[in-house]
């Protein structure tokens, strides 16, 4: 009970923090929409092509904008000592990683997921695909959050080369992207593909607390 309460208050804190960083989220979303406009303009008014590549574009933009927010993942908490406080407050580093991953999903990815319907209208993606899109996007963005957690905790130990973490995330997300784009275009065996995606999610989800936790501990030790 006490533990549950602590988790709730953890999210209260995250909420307060993210709200004050509203600008970052807005910047991400604006980036997202500007990019969509860019594509629409560069392709021209040919609606066929747009809807053909729309899903791919959405996926790429999802990935890119989650790299945009990677720096926020642990960096701030690490620098102002709140990572340590949270640990001393009774959360193991692995568990902090899980909490933070969800928080990233909640406060960064969800706003995106919500803007997907609008993006679909712009990109002329037919309505009956929307539900597939949504499911695959939710799973995919959770995967991205997990990968992001790992790479940005690694980045704490490597304060010089910030982009390296993002590059690693992106390499690992290539298979995810291939599968997820495939899902939309192969409606018949939707289920088996989504299962694969789900499998990937489970794997990264299991690795995440272990890997991120280790990196967090080491980076605090060396600070």
């Amino acid at each position, binding site marked *: 009970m*006490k533990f549950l309460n602590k988790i709730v*208050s953890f999210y209260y804190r995250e909420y307060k923090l993210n709200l*004050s960083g509203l600008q970052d989220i807005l910047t991400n979303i604006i980036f997202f929409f500007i990019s969509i406009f860019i594509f629409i303009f560069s392709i021209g008014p040919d609606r066929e092509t747009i809807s053909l590549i729309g899903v791919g574009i959405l996926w790429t933009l999802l990935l890119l904008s989650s790299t945009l927010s990677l720096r926020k993942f642990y960096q701030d908490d690490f620098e102002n*000592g709140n990572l340590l*406080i949270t*640990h001393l*407050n*009774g959360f193991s580093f692995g568990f902090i990683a899980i909490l933070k991953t969800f928080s990233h999903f909640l406060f960064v990815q969800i706003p995106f997921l919500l803007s997907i319907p609008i993006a679909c209208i712009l990109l002329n993606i037919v309505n009956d695909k929307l539900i597939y899109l949504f499911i695959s996007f939710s799973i995919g963005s959770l995967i991205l959050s997990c990968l992001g957690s790992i790479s940005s905790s690694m980045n704490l130990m490597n304060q010089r080369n910030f982009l390296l973490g993002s590059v690693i995330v992106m390499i690992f997300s290539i298979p995810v992207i291939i599968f997820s784009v495939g899902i939309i275009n192969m409606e018949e065996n939707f289920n088996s593909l989504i299962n694969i995606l789900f499998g990937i999610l489970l794997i990264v989800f299991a690795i995440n607390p272990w890997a991120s936790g280790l990196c967090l501990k080491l980076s605090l030790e060396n600070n």
Partner: protein
Amino acid sequence: MILVKDLSIERSNKTIFNNVNLSLGSGNIILLKGKNGSGKTTLLKTIVNIIDPSSGSIYWKGKPLKKNLYDFYNHTTYIADKTSSLSKLTVQDNIKIWKKIFLSKINNSQIESILKTLKLDNYLNQKVSSLSFGETKKLEFLRLIIEDKKIWILDEPLSSLDDESIDIIGQTFQDHRSKEGSIIFSSHQNSDIGVTEEIRL
């Protein structure tokens, strides 16, 4: 309750200190002294298990610390030499957040009275980033009251404070001691704050 035995620490192959022993019982106030870079912060961090010692061991209630870590954390407040309040939020928001995350049972009037003694009551709606250095530091001490733990581990709590505030902190230390609490803190200043033991690094 805390027992540190023959603790040595190396970092990047440099020995920082060797064979430190200390024991912190209830009602003790230990002052760590030493030159800059003598390893005070390192020692305190080792006690809260952020840094792994090269040799030696730390016990909590008779058991090795690592075995019993979260129970130890449950009884400990650690305030580092940097402040942890969120500078983008107001003082009030920070207090609210602390109250939530530490599941504090302190009620608001108590907090208000402490804010008044610390002379922070006028700044409730000010952003932490615009507080003066000393005020941020004093704000940090609120955590001691909000967390309400037995053991306080404080890194340079007295630096950058005016004499009046130091007196208030000293008062708080004595209160805590009379409630069987224990404190270990580092400082460069000599103030008579009721220290029961002094350790030089």
